[in-house]
């Protein structure tokens, strides 16, 4: 049980860094996360159900999302629409979770993932319940920081 939680978390983490590297060219480093209570402008979440139930989260500032999506699409930052920015972050989340799911399925565990959802605002705080199992990390470098969380329900 414990083991699967770790494998799933790693698959998602690898999924996010692989997706960002491939889609934007940004090779980011992974850090253990130390700032759960920092504010972000965009928080995305996707749920996974099956052998284990989990929620995957990525959070990012608006400015950094702009940089990522600009590299992802080849569209200059000042020409990107809000919809393109949110769509780009949603796609990173969706592809990362899809990769995590497929890798776990090759180990013969069946999972379903929900559609990704984004919460957009200004300096939003991300809170979780006490006493749940979770893994939190930060992917950073090249002026981009992304918070990644995996929460077991």
């Amino acid at each position, binding site marked *: 049980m414990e083991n699967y939680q770790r494998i799933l978390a790693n698959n998602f983490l690898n999924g996010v860094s692989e997706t960002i590297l*491939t889609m934007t060219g940004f090779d980011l480093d992974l850090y253990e996360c130390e700032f759960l209570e920092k504010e972000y402008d965009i928080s995305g979440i996707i749920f996974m159900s099956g052998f284990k139930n989990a929620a995957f989260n990525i959070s990012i500032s608006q400015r950094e999302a702009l940089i990522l999506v600009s590299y*992802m699409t080849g569209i200059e930052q000042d020409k990107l629409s809000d919809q393109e920015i949110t*769509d780009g972050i*949603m796609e990173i989340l969706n592809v990362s979770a*899809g990769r995590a799911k*497929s890798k776990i399925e090759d180990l013969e565990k069946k999972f379903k993932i929900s*559609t990704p959802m984004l919460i957009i605002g200004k300096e939003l705080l991300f809170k979780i319940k006490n006493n749940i199992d979770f893994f939190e990390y930060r992917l950073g470098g090249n002026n981009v920081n992304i918070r990644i969380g995996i929460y077991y329900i």
Partner: protein
Amino acid sequence: MRLLSVDDSMVVRKIIKAAVAVLDFDLEEAENSIEAFEILDKFNGVIDLVLLDWNMPGLSGYELLNALKKDIKYREIPVMMVTAESSKESIVNAIEAGAVNYMVKPFTMEELIKKIMECIGKGEA
């Protein structure tokens, strides 16, 4: 050549459009299966390749693939899956259902362009 991208993500369609432009092809875009059928009807099935996402609202890409392969008007149009769905089972299912190629997301522009060319038989020895 005219290609059709069926993907609910606008950003993915833009990326595909950029690749297709390099090859001097036209790209039609559909957000879901309903729009995909509208475009297929509009061009009377004269589409050289469909690039198909798996997880979409409404009919999934896999369901759309099966529907196309049963449709006498559209069954000959080559379809490549373009999806984060990469388990062995999914790949085998899609190829069995008649997909000519399979592109796993995330992909680089090189991989995308190369696979499009493989599908339409350009550059093959």
